[in-house]
């Protein structure tokens, strides 16, 4: 099967998508860009291929299953088992790196105690894994780092002893270890982890798969062995210059976001993208071709990172921020331009007795206000309007955007896709699929 791959090397997250011959979305992958760019790029890509193979598995399973529900349940089980395998693989990497970090000279005095404590934590993490991947459990994040951090901190806090192995020490080794876990590509591929997942799924009693075991096995094997020919790969995003691609395979993120948004919502005329460290306002024509754009890139203020920083400051997970901000009842005006100062302002305001929800509401509005200026600069908001980028996942941000668009441009259709974070990568993949100008790349398999 011929596929086209798009990679969006963002400042915060790296995204990859795979399109089939019909330009249908076959697979997508995402990872933190924090680690080294090449690694991030290959992790996201691998992840997209994994998704693609799961999608293929579904296809090979066919529709002649009892009910589509059972079919989906089986696929879901398979994928969760697979994810758990991956998770355990990474936990064991983490164990290695933690013990390695504990080798630092300054831990000499209490090293054995520290190692014991680490093992206690990690054993619990292993033990808790199945629960984390149980049916219907909603995980807090797609990223191992986030999942592991939350759990580790929680466990560390419980077992730490201010007089013995204290919390700070446990945090210290973790900060060091997680970096290395992220920066090394472990083998998390479909090939390496699917077999165990398959067997577990087959053994899962609640699915009663005895009769269909071969069918499932065959589908998995077929998906695993299916050949995916890369018709083309195009890279985009903040770090695109660092991708190991020739120049023809690199596209500006503006064009990709325009095209990607058009793909998801064909009537799109205006696109707003708020990513980790820049914001773009783009106008596109009826074919998804960019007609004008504006971007700001002064600093982290007003972008996704800003929210990340604030979340940290408030001890919240990123995805908890929006819902909390939506509980705001009064408008608070945030005036600091700098993210870090906003952090201080936040503390001041909390100290002054203002409600967390209200302050957060103000912060979200402040971010969207900046975006509104940029939109105005690029030519305003036209029908239809599509909001993309990671911040589109934040409900308080989208709410503030809806309000401000309504106030200033009247009633407009506002599109927000759950896949919005992949918009740039999709655009890149579409460019790869077009592959018109560089015939050379058609041969690459």
């Amino acid at each position, binding site marked *: 099967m011929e596929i086209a791959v798009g990679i969006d090397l963002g400042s915060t997250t790296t995204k990859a998508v795979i399109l089939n011959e019909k330009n249908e979305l076959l697979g997508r992958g995402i990872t933190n860009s924090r680690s080294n760019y090449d690694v991030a790029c290959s992790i996201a890509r691998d992840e997209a291929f994994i998704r693609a193979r799961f999608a293929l598995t579904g296809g090979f399973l066919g529709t002649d299953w009892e009910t589509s529900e059972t079919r989906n349940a089986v696929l879901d089980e398979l994928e969760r088992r697979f994810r758990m395998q991956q998770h355990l693989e990474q936990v064991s990497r983490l164990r290695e790196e933690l013990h390695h970090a504990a080798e630092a000279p300054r831990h000499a005095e209490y090293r054995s105690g520290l190692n014991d404590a680490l093992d206690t934590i990690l054993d619990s993490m292993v033990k808790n894994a199945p629960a984390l991947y149980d049916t219907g459990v909603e995980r807090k994040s797609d990223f191992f780092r986030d999942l592991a951090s939350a759990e580790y901190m929680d466990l560390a806090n419980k077992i730490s002893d201010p007089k013995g192995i204290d919390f700070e020490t446990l945090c210290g080794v973790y900060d060091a270890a997680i970096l290395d876990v992220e920066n090394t590509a472990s083998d998390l591929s479909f090939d390496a982890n699917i077999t165990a997942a398959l067997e577990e799924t087959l053994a899962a009693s609640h699915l009663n798969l005895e009769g269909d075991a071969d069918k499932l096995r065959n589908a998995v094997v077929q998906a695993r062995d299916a050949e995916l020919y890369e018709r083309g790969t195009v890279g985009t995003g903040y770090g695109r210059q660092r991708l190991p691609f020739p120049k023809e395979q690199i*596209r*500006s*993120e*503006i*064009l990709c976001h325009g095209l990607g948004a058009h793909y998801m919502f064909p009537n799109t005329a205006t696109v707003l993208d708020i990513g980790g460290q820049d914001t773009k306002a783009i106008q596109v*024509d009826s*074919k998804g*071709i*960019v*007609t*004008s*754009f*504006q*971007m700001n*890139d002064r600093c982290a203020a007003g972008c996704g990172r800003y929210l990340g920083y604030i979340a940290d400051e408030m001890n919240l997970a990123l995805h908890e921020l929006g819902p909390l901000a939506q509980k705001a009842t009064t408008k608070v005006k945030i005036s600091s331009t700098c993210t870090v100062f906003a952090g201080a302002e936040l503390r001041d305001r909390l100290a002054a007795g203002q409600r967390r929800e209200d302050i957060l509401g103000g912060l979200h509005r402040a971010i969207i206000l900046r975006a509104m200026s940029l939109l105005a*600069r690029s*030519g305003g908001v036209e029908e239809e309007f599509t909001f993309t980028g990671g911040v589109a996942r934040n409900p308080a941000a989208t709410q503030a955007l809806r309000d401000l668009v309504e106030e200033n441009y009247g009633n407009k259709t506002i599109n927000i896709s759950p896949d919005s974070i992949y918009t740039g990568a999709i655009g890149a993949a579409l460019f790869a699929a077009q592959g018109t100008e560089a015939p050379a790349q058609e041969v690459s398999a």
Partner: protein
Amino acid sequence: MTNPKQPSSPGTIAEVRKEESMNLQKQMIGGHYQALERAPKEGRKVVYTFVPGNLTELIRSFDLLPVLPEINALQSGMRKLSGGYIAEAEKSGHSEDVCTYVKCDIGMMKKGNISPTGTKIPDPDLLLLSYTGCFTFMKWFELLREEYGCPVAMLHVPYQADGTIHAHHRDYIVEQIKTELIPKLEQVSGQKYDEDRLKESLKLSAEAEDDFVHVIESAKNVPSPIDAYFGGVFYIGPMFTAFRGTPEGVEYYKTLCAEIDERVRLGLGPITPDGEMTEERFRLVVEGPPNWTSFREFWKMFYEEGAVFVASSYTKVGGLYDRGFRHDPEHPLETLADYCMGCYTNLGLPSRIELLQDYINEYKADGFMINSVKSCNSFSAGQLLILRQIEERTGVPGGFIESDLVDPRYFSAANIKNRIESYLQMLEQRRKTGVAS
């Protein structure tokens, strides 16, 4: 000189030709700085003044030597000296928010007033404050007045808010020349005002102006033989500074004209620091001055992609010759007044937009770019509206980048490159899919 002895490859001819006018200019500028250095010894007096609305012919008619601090600043920028000068000025209490030309000049002065070519620039005997198109000029010379304690002659040029020169505007300038400038110039130089000499000089100006227009309009050819922005800043040099109304100026533009005509004949593109541009992929019109501290790097971002600037507003800050203005020896003071009022930054926003719009049409441009500089409110305030209006009126998409004139802190190469790249890719994409512009 139009008759090379033996046939050589077109590239070589171009190389030789290029050097001829370039060398000429180099000599002229070098000579001028040397004359300035010698001035105190030779008892010659020095007048500082600004590029827009400069009255070179009048100054020269008193045998005075002009110094243009803006040119010193931009040269310092190109030679990477400006960062240090600006720091020096900020140390003495100047805000980081204000025009960096001023700070660069003040810093240079505080460090001994050594010209970018290494010669000593003498202190001014007179500050001729040609207050044209920019308020900062006034502050600039007030600052210098404090420093040097020399006399100032203020020439206030009214703004062309509605695009017409009103009688009371012209009268006002002529009166100021008569009652303020000429007496002070006479006093400083010890010479009487000699109108015939001024007329002579104005005649030479007009002559060079014809050739100059021919050069900048050569960009109407496809491919354009010149880059009217990055290359343009060299072509305006003699015309906008100390050489208008001089025989050397006339000579320079004659030589340049011949070179460019030859390039047109051979169908050659512009010369860049990396050699000749072989393929003209984009024809752009640009508004705003360039960045000087990373001039080459900035230029490269365009020529690498086959983008050539066919017209620019910056090359009009010292007069809109291509719109028909010529110095008129028959009405010497009135023509000086009209010249001052017609400089680009002295035009109202509506006139600026019309001009750019005409350029886009006349020069068959497929793109429009604004380089907005932090320093300059005169240029920058309102540019975002210019962008919108141009897009609306011409259908040509606009690109917007931000940098500064001579403050290296405000040239963020990665960001600027990102924008330029995105912009050019967008033009390309539109072209490919047949979006009419």
